[in-house]
């Protein structure tokens, strides 16, 4: 309950400091600069590189059906897809979930997306051409497009999501998981699981794997905005394994501040991607700030050294 006299529309600086909220400036200046060597970003900014590392480490990733590298590849897409009906189209360097299409079904004339949208053949070609010419990548760099397995939501997850696949974001500092949240696509996020695109985030207790309430459009919420369902006390399946996979991947990549996105699948956690500049909305989802964990990470412990699997070299 808020005290009527004390309620304010804005927090005060000291409120946020007291809550240990990590702001974007401090994230950029203190955390990213000191914990994330620039040369390692190539390993997470390119999703194909991340997938390669995961496979070498024995961490499951969605199966790659095809990689489009040049414009002529677009014409051969139908051939490469064979009879597959469900798959995900993902620009390899797409930033912040941009340019991702989740395909539910296809016929001669086009694709049906998971959010119900219909895309005709030439619309898809255009999307692929745009992706390859860098419309969704950071800085507009030319890009490749990954066509990969669509990881379906199962069990507890399936009835929470509105289209799209929910996933779990684990935030790791110096390789240790410090915060996590379940990200659920909503009607207004159009099937995407990125918070700034309107997805719902539920804080997850690291120790127990239970959800605590959520964040939607930067507001703390306790019910699902589309279904009205309560959000607290959901238990994440295979929680230990999920955390272990995220920690293993981070130890290999060597970024001291990393967000790893996974889906707890039937056979074990599947890594979708990793993010070297993780968003801060996770703090609202968990109702607590990241600063204590950040201070601890900055004060103690040597910075992470990348420990890539044999045969992989650092590039970029």
């Amino acid at each position: 309950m808020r005290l009527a006299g004390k309620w304010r529309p804005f927090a005060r600086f000291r409120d946020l400091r007291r809550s240990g909220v990590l702001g974007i400036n401090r994230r950029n200046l203190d955390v990213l600069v000191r914990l994330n060597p620039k040369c390692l970003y190539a390993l997470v900014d390119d999703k194909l590189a991340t997938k390669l590392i995961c496979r070498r480490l024995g961490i499951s990733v969605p199966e790659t059906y095809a990689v489009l590298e040049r414009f002529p590849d677009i014409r051969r897409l139908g051939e490469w897809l064979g009879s597959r009906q469900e798959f995900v189209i993902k620009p390899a360097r797409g930033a912040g979930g941009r340019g991702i299409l989740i395909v539910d079904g296809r016929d001669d004339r086009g694709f049906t997306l998971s959010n119900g949208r219909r895309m005709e053949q030439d619309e898809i070609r255009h999307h692929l051409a745009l992706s390859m010419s860098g419309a969704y990548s950071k800085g507009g760099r030319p890009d490749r497009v990954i066509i990969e397995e669509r990881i379906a939501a199962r069990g507890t997850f399936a009835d929470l999501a509105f289209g799209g696949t929910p996933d779990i974001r684990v935030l790791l500092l110096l390789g240790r998981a410090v915060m996590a949240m379940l990200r659920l696509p909503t009607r207004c996020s159009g099937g995407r699981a990125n918070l700034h695109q309107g997805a719902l985030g539920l804080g997850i207790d690291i120790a127990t794997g239970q959800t605590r309430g959520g964040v939607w459009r930067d507001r703390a919420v306790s019910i699902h905005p589309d279904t009205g369902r309560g959000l607290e006390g959901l238990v994440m399946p295979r929680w230990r394994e999920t955390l272990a996979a995220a920690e293993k991947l981070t130890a290999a990549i060597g970024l001291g501040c990393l967000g790893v996105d996974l889906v707890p699948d039937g056979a074990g956690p599947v890594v979708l991607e990793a993010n070297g500049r993780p968003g801060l909305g996770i703090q609202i989802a968990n109702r607590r700030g990241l600063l204590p964990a950040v201070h601890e990470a900055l004060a103690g412990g040597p910075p992470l050294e990348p420990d890539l699997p044999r045969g992989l070299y650092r590039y970029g």
Partner: protein
Amino acid sequence: MAHPRPATLGAVALAVGGVACACLRLILGAAEPAGWSAIPDLMRLPAPTQQTLAVLLILPAGAAITSFARNIVGFQTFGTLMPNLLALSFLETDWITGSAVFVIVMLVGLGGRAALGRLRLLIGPRLGLVLTATVLCLAAAVSVADHLGLPVRASVALLPTVVLTIVVERFYVSIEENGLATSIRLLATTLAVALVCLGLLKWRALGGLALRFPEGELLVAAALVLIGRYSGYRLSELWRFRDLAADESERSK
């Protein structure tokens, strides 16, 4: 977090250095007006050069304003330099011509861009086509104005056209990525910051001061260093994280 801050010291050094230089020049300058020591004195330059330099010297202040809006207030704009670029491009125009160019380019640009969306072109050619449509409309507008006997200087429309076309394109891409509401907000903040920058550029007294004391740039540099090292909360975060503060007061009860 009270470790020594080299950046803060640097900023102070820059500011003190700037003020010291200006004072030194004031004291010594009167005594010896000729020779090499006259170099820092920009007031001796021909008037047109002075005018150009006055604009140039204010640009960093515009950059400082934009950085302040982005990193301390938390306004999002289309790029860091875009507001400054917009302001610069509109500098030569008077209010009426400027508004006319703005309205024409925005309307034609947004309309043309919306129509082109269906053609599914790659980014470069699409941008070129939007520019073509805008340029045609501007040419028509200039011709019509001339026919009506209004005095027009078409040259003032050069820069605004190109810069605004880029803004239109960014705006459209942003609609796809962030939705309409966010994009309109982005556009509005970009324009608002650009207006402030334009105000600075048009401010005669400030231009005169910058010419008289080019050392002022060091003060701007000091401000930029400080803004660049600001790791506190952005004002927008007081809003964004307001629910976390509320939680804290609950917990302490």
